[in-house]
Protein backbone atom coordinates (compact mmCIF):
# COMPACT_ATOMS: atom_id res chain seq x y z
CA UNK A 1 0.00 0.00 0.00
CA UNK A 2 2.81 2.39 0.91
CA UNK A 3 4.47 1.87 -2.42
CA UNK A 4 1.20 2.71 -4.14
CA UNK A 5 0.89 5.94 -2.18
CA UNK A 6 4.51 6.82 -2.91
CA UNK A 7 4.19 6.07 -6.57
CA UNK A 8 0.97 8.07 -6.79
CA UNK A 9 2.63 11.05 -5.14
CA UNK A 10 5.53 10.76 -7.58
CA UNK A 11 3.06 10.50 -10.41
CA UNK A 12 1.29 13.68 -9.42
CA UNK A 13 4.57 15.53 -9.03
CA UNK A 14 6.27 14.41 -12.18
CA UNK A 15 3.45 13.55 -14.49
CA UNK A 16 2.45 10.06 -15.51
CA UNK A 17 4.89 9.73 -18.37
CA UNK A 18 7.46 7.71 -16.47
CA UNK A 19 4.81 5.26 -15.26
CA UNK A 20 3.45 4.15 -18.57
CA UNK A 21 4.45 0.68 -19.72
CA UNK A 22 7.88 0.78 -21.32
CA UNK A 23 8.49 -2.35 -23.31
CA UNK A 24 11.59 -1.29 -25.18
CA UNK A 25 13.96 -1.85 -22.29
CA UNK A 26 12.05 -4.71 -20.67
CA UNK A 27 10.68 -2.74 -17.73
CA UNK A 28 6.92 -2.75 -17.17
CA UNK A 29 5.49 -0.14 -14.86
CA UNK A 30 2.25 -0.71 -13.01
CA UNK A 31 -0.73 1.12 -14.39
CA UNK A 32 -2.27 1.42 -10.94
CA UNK A 33 -0.61 4.74 -10.10
CA UNK A 34 -1.39 6.09 -13.51
CA UNK A 35 -5.16 5.69 -13.42
CA UNK A 36 -5.34 8.20 -10.62
CA UNK A 37 -3.97 10.91 -12.89
CA UNK A 38 -6.69 12.61 -14.85
CA UNK A 39 -6.82 11.78 -18.54
CA UNK A 40 -6.80 15.50 -19.25
CA UNK A 41 -3.20 15.38 -18.08
CA UNK A 42 -2.49 12.73 -20.70
CA UNK A 43 -2.11 15.33 -23.42
CA UNK A 44 0.49 17.13 -21.34
CA UNK A 45 2.18 13.83 -20.52
CA UNK A 46 2.31 12.91 -24.18
CA UNK A 47 4.06 16.20 -24.85
CA UNK A 48 6.78 15.10 -22.45
CA UNK A 49 6.84 11.49 -23.60
CA UNK A 50 7.54 12.33 -27.20
CA UNK A 51 10.47 14.57 -26.24
CA UNK A 52 12.06 12.31 -23.66
CA UNK A 53 13.59 10.03 -26.24
CA UNK A 54 14.99 10.66 -29.72
CA UNK A 55 12.81 7.99 -31.29
CA UNK A 56 9.36 7.27 -29.90
CA UNK A 57 6.88 4.77 -31.32
CA UNK A 58 3.25 4.27 -30.33
CA UNK A 59 2.35 0.82 -31.56
CA UNK A 60 0.22 -2.24 -31.09
CA UNK A 61 2.22 -4.77 -29.16
CA UNK A 62 5.90 -4.44 -28.38
CA UNK A 63 9.07 -4.43 -30.49
CA UNK A 64 9.68 -7.98 -29.30
CA UNK A 65 6.12 -9.01 -30.09
CA UNK A 66 4.25 -6.67 -32.43
CA UNK A 67 0.51 -7.32 -32.63
CA UNK A 68 -0.17 -5.64 -35.94
CA UNK A 69 1.41 -5.90 -39.37
CA UNK A 70 1.78 -2.13 -39.71
CA UNK A 71 3.37 -1.77 -36.28
CA UNK A 72 5.65 -4.69 -37.09
CA UNK A 73 6.74 -2.96 -40.31
CA UNK A 74 7.86 0.07 -38.28
CA UNK A 75 9.81 -2.13 -35.90
CA UNK A 76 11.47 -4.00 -38.76
CA UNK A 77 12.43 -0.81 -40.58
CA UNK A 78 13.99 0.68 -37.46
CA UNK A 79 15.79 -2.59 -36.81
CA UNK A 80 17.20 -2.60 -40.35
CA UNK A 81 18.71 0.80 -39.66
CA UNK A 82 20.17 -0.45 -36.38
CA UNK A 83 17.76 1.57 -34.26
CA UNK A 84 16.94 -0.76 -31.37
CA UNK A 85 17.10 1.60 -28.45
CA UNK A 86 13.89 3.61 -28.66
CA UNK A 87 10.85 4.24 -26.52
CA UNK A 88 7.81 2.23 -27.49
CA UNK A 89 4.33 2.43 -26.00
CA UNK A 90 1.85 -0.38 -26.44
CA UNK A 91 -1.57 1.16 -27.05
CA UNK A 92 -3.29 -2.21 -26.70
CA UNK A 93 -2.51 -2.10 -22.99
CA UNK A 94 -4.03 1.30 -22.44
CA UNK A 95 -7.17 2.43 -24.25
CA UNK A 96 -6.82 5.97 -22.91
CA UNK A 97 -3.37 6.20 -24.40
CA UNK A 98 -4.65 4.74 -27.64
CA UNK A 99 -7.26 7.46 -28.04
CA UNK A 100 -5.15 10.17 -26.41
CA UNK A 101 -2.25 9.80 -28.81
CA UNK A 102 -4.60 10.08 -31.80
CA UNK A 103 -5.87 13.38 -30.41
CA UNK A 104 -2.39 14.55 -29.51
CA UNK A 105 -0.95 13.84 -32.95
CA UNK A 106 -4.17 14.66 -34.79
CA UNK A 107 -3.59 11.37 -36.56
CA UNK A 108 -6.24 8.68 -36.74
CA UNK A 109 -4.23 5.47 -36.81
CA UNK A 110 -1.53 3.48 -35.06
CA UNK A 111 1.48 3.10 -35.37
CA UNK A 112 2.82 6.62 -34.86
CA UNK A 113 6.47 7.61 -34.98
CA UNK A 114 8.14 10.64 -33.39
CA UNK A 115 11.69 11.89 -33.97
CA UNK A 116 12.94 14.40 -31.38
CA UNK A 117 9.45 15.32 -30.36
CA UNK A 118 8.26 15.87 -33.90
CA UNK A 119 5.59 13.67 -35.45
CA UNK A 120 6.96 11.85 -38.49
CA UNK A 121 4.01 9.76 -39.55
CA UNK A 122 2.85 6.18 -39.60
CA UNK A 123 3.97 3.01 -41.30
CA UNK A 124 3.44 4.25 -44.88
CA UNK A 125 5.54 7.36 -44.37
CA UNK A 126 8.34 5.55 -42.57
CA UNK A 127 8.42 2.96 -45.33
CA UNK A 128 8.66 5.59 -48.04
CA UNK A 129 11.37 7.44 -46.13
CA UNK A 130 13.26 4.17 -45.86
CA UNK A 131 12.88 3.50 -49.58
CA UNK A 132 13.88 6.98 -50.78
CA UNK A 133 16.83 7.46 -48.42
CA UNK A 134 15.22 10.16 -46.29
CA UNK A 135 15.23 7.97 -43.20
CA UNK A 136 19.03 7.71 -43.19
CA UNK A 137 19.20 11.52 -43.36
CA UNK A 138 16.66 12.06 -40.61
CA UNK A 139 18.42 9.59 -38.33
CA UNK A 140 21.69 11.43 -39.00
CA UNK A 141 20.06 14.65 -37.78
CA UNK A 142 19.21 12.82 -34.57
CA UNK A 143 22.82 11.81 -34.19
CA UNK A 144 22.04 8.23 -35.13
CA UNK A 145 24.14 6.62 -37.81
CA UNK A 146 22.04 4.17 -39.77
CA UNK A 147 23.35 0.61 -39.89
CA UNK A 148 22.57 0.60 -43.61
CA UNK A 149 24.98 3.48 -44.10
CA UNK A 150 27.65 1.63 -42.15
CA UNK A 151 27.05 -1.51 -44.21
CA UNK A 152 27.35 0.52 -47.41
CA UNK A 153 30.66 2.04 -46.29
CA UNK A 154 32.05 -1.37 -45.40
CA UNK A 155 31.18 -2.83 -48.75
CA UNK A 156 33.18 -0.13 -50.58
Amino acid at each position, binding site marked *: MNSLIRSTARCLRQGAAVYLPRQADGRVWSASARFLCASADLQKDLGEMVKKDKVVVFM*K*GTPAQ*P*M*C*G*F*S*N*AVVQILRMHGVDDYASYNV*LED*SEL*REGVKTFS*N*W*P*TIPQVYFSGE*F*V*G*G*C*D*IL*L*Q*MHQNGDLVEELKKLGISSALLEAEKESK
Partner: protein
Amino acid sequence: MLPAVFRCVRPISTSLALSRSLSHFRPHMDPDPSRPIERSIRSKLADTLKPDHLEVHNESHMHAVPPGSESHFRVLVVSSQFEGLPLIKRHRLVNEALKEELSSCVHALSIQAKTPEQWRSNPSLAKSPPCMGGSRGDHTVEEKLKAGRE
Protein backbone atom coordinates in the same frame (compact mmCIF):
# COMPACT_ATOMS: atom_id res chain seq x y z
CA MET B 1 -34.75 3.24 -42.54
CA LEU B 2 -31.78 5.41 -43.32
CA PRO B 3 -30.01 5.15 -46.66
CA ALA B 4 -27.14 2.71 -46.54
CA VAL B 5 -24.60 5.40 -47.27
CA PHE B 6 -25.32 7.08 -43.94
CA ARG B 7 -24.91 3.90 -41.95
CA CYS B 8 -21.44 4.72 -40.89
CA VAL B 9 -21.72 8.42 -40.24
CA ARG B 10 -24.61 8.31 -37.77
CA PRO B 11 -23.77 8.76 -34.11
CA ILE B 12 -23.32 5.45 -32.35
CA SER B 13 -25.53 6.49 -29.45
CA THR B 14 -28.87 6.43 -31.26
CA SER B 15 -31.35 3.79 -30.11
CA LEU B 16 -31.62 2.38 -33.62
CA ALA B 17 -27.96 1.47 -33.41
CA LEU B 18 -28.51 -0.44 -30.19
CA SER B 19 -31.54 -2.35 -31.42
CA ARG B 20 -29.78 -3.92 -34.40
CA SER B 21 -28.47 -7.39 -33.71
CA LEU B 22 -25.84 -9.30 -35.61
CA SER B 23 -28.48 -11.43 -37.33
CA HIS B 24 -28.07 -9.51 -40.56
CA PHE B 25 -24.33 -10.22 -40.47
CA ARG B 26 -23.14 -11.49 -43.79
CA PRO B 27 -21.52 -14.92 -43.53
CA HIS B 28 -19.65 -14.86 -46.83
CA MET B 29 -16.34 -13.30 -47.75
CA ASP B 30 -17.54 -10.40 -49.92
CA PRO B 31 -18.27 -7.06 -48.30
CA ASP B 32 -21.77 -5.63 -48.46
CA PRO B 33 -22.41 -5.37 -52.23
CA SER B 34 -23.51 -1.79 -51.78
CA ARG B 35 -20.10 -1.14 -50.12
CA PRO B 36 -21.18 2.08 -48.49
CA ILE B 37 -17.87 2.90 -46.83
CA GLU B 38 -15.83 2.22 -49.94
CA ARG B 39 -18.17 4.40 -51.98
CA SER B 40 -18.03 7.15 -49.42
CA ILE B 41 -14.24 7.08 -49.32
CA ARG B 42 -14.07 7.18 -53.08
CA SER B 43 -16.46 10.08 -53.47
CA LYS B 44 -14.91 12.17 -50.70
CA LEU B 45 -11.40 11.75 -52.06
CA ALA B 46 -12.61 12.54 -55.57
CA ASP B 47 -14.41 15.67 -54.43
CA THR B 48 -11.64 16.99 -52.17
CA LEU B 49 -8.48 16.11 -54.04
CA LYS B 50 -9.67 16.02 -57.65
CA PRO B 51 -7.30 13.12 -58.38
CA ASP B 52 -5.93 12.16 -61.78
CA HIS B 53 -5.98 8.59 -60.55
CA LEU B 54 -7.68 7.04 -57.53
CA GLU B 55 -7.74 3.51 -56.19
CA VAL B 56 -9.64 2.44 -53.09
CA HIS B 57 -9.01 -1.10 -51.90
CA ASN B 58 -10.89 -2.78 -49.09
CA GLU B 59 -8.25 -4.91 -47.37
CA SER B 60 -10.40 -5.97 -44.45
CA HIS B 61 -10.32 -9.60 -45.60
CA MET B 62 -6.57 -9.58 -44.98
CA HIS B 63 -7.09 -8.84 -41.30
CA ALA B 64 -8.52 -10.46 -38.21
CA VAL B 65 -12.01 -9.01 -38.65
CA PRO B 66 -15.28 -10.72 -39.65
CA PRO B 67 -15.98 -11.36 -43.34
CA GLY B 68 -17.78 -8.50 -45.01
CA SER B 69 -16.09 -5.83 -42.91
CA GLU B 70 -15.18 -2.42 -44.21
CA SER B 71 -12.53 -1.62 -41.62
CA HIS B 72 -9.14 -1.72 -43.34
CA PHE B 73 -8.50 0.23 -46.53
CA ARG B 74 -5.61 1.06 -48.82
CA VAL B 75 -5.93 4.16 -50.99
CA LEU B 76 -3.77 5.41 -53.81
CA VAL B 77 -4.36 9.05 -54.68
CA VAL B 78 -2.61 10.81 -57.55
CA SER B 79 -3.27 14.51 -57.42
CA SER B 80 -1.54 17.71 -58.45
CA GLN B 81 -2.72 19.13 -55.10
CA PHE B 82 0.17 17.18 -53.57
CA GLU B 83 2.79 19.16 -55.51
CA GLY B 84 5.35 20.66 -53.18
CA LEU B 85 3.85 19.05 -50.11
CA PRO B 86 5.82 16.75 -47.83
CA LEU B 87 4.37 13.26 -47.28
CA ILE B 88 2.95 14.11 -43.90
CA LYS B 89 0.92 17.03 -45.24
CA ARG B 90 -0.36 14.89 -48.10
CA HIS B 91 -1.48 12.20 -45.69
CA ARG B 92 -3.13 14.77 -43.45
CA LEU B 93 -5.17 16.01 -46.42
CA VAL B 94 -6.39 12.48 -47.02
CA ASN B 95 -7.09 11.93 -43.32
CA GLU B 96 -9.03 15.18 -43.18
CA ALA B 97 -11.17 14.20 -46.16
CA LEU B 98 -12.00 10.86 -44.51
CA LYS B 99 -12.39 12.17 -40.98
CA GLU B 100 -15.89 10.73 -40.50
CA GLU B 101 -15.01 7.26 -41.72
CA LEU B 102 -11.83 7.21 -39.62
CA SER B 103 -13.69 8.16 -36.48
CA SER B 104 -16.33 5.48 -37.02
CA CYS B 105 -15.76 2.22 -38.89
CA VAL B 106 -12.40 2.55 -40.59
CA HIS B 107 -9.77 1.13 -38.31
CA ALA B 108 -6.75 1.25 -40.59
CA LEU B 109 -5.95 3.35 -43.62
CA SER B 110 -2.86 2.87 -45.78
CA ILE B 111 -2.13 5.84 -47.97
CA GLN B 112 -0.05 6.39 -51.07
CA ALA B 113 -0.19 10.03 -52.08
CA LYS B 114 1.62 10.82 -55.31
CA THR B 115 1.90 13.75 -57.68
CA PRO B 116 1.06 12.99 -61.33
CA GLU B 117 4.78 13.03 -62.14
CA GLN B 118 5.62 10.58 -59.37
CA TRP B 119 2.84 8.29 -60.55
CA ARG B 120 4.10 8.39 -64.13
CA SER B 121 7.62 7.43 -63.08
CA ASN B 122 6.43 4.69 -60.74
CA PRO B 123 2.87 3.52 -61.40
CA SER B 124 2.70 0.84 -58.73
CA LEU B 125 0.52 0.12 -55.73
CA ALA B 126 2.36 -0.75 -52.53
CA LYS B 127 1.43 -3.92 -50.68
CA SER B 128 0.30 -4.06 -47.07
CA PRO B 129 2.36 -6.03 -44.57
CA PRO B 130 0.83 -9.31 -43.38
CA CYS B 131 -1.64 -9.07 -40.53
CA MET B 132 -0.43 -10.09 -37.10
CA GLY B 133 -3.88 -10.57 -35.68
CA GLY B 134 -4.00 -7.48 -33.52
CA SER B 135 -7.67 -6.84 -34.30
CA ARG B 136 -8.74 -10.25 -33.02
CA GLY B 137 -10.47 -9.81 -29.67
CA ASP B 138 -9.97 -6.05 -29.88
CA HIS B 139 -13.21 -4.70 -28.52
CA THR B 140 -12.71 -1.23 -29.99
CA VAL B 141 -12.59 -2.76 -33.48
CA GLU B 142 -15.78 -4.71 -32.76
CA GLU B 143 -17.46 -1.48 -31.71
CA LYS B 144 -16.31 0.26 -34.85
CA LEU B 145 -17.59 -2.56 -37.02
CA LYS B 146 -20.97 -2.47 -35.27
CA ALA B 147 -21.08 1.27 -35.88
CA GLY B 148 -20.47 0.59 -39.54
CA ARG B 149 -23.34 -1.86 -39.83
CA GLU B 150 -26.01 0.27 -38.21
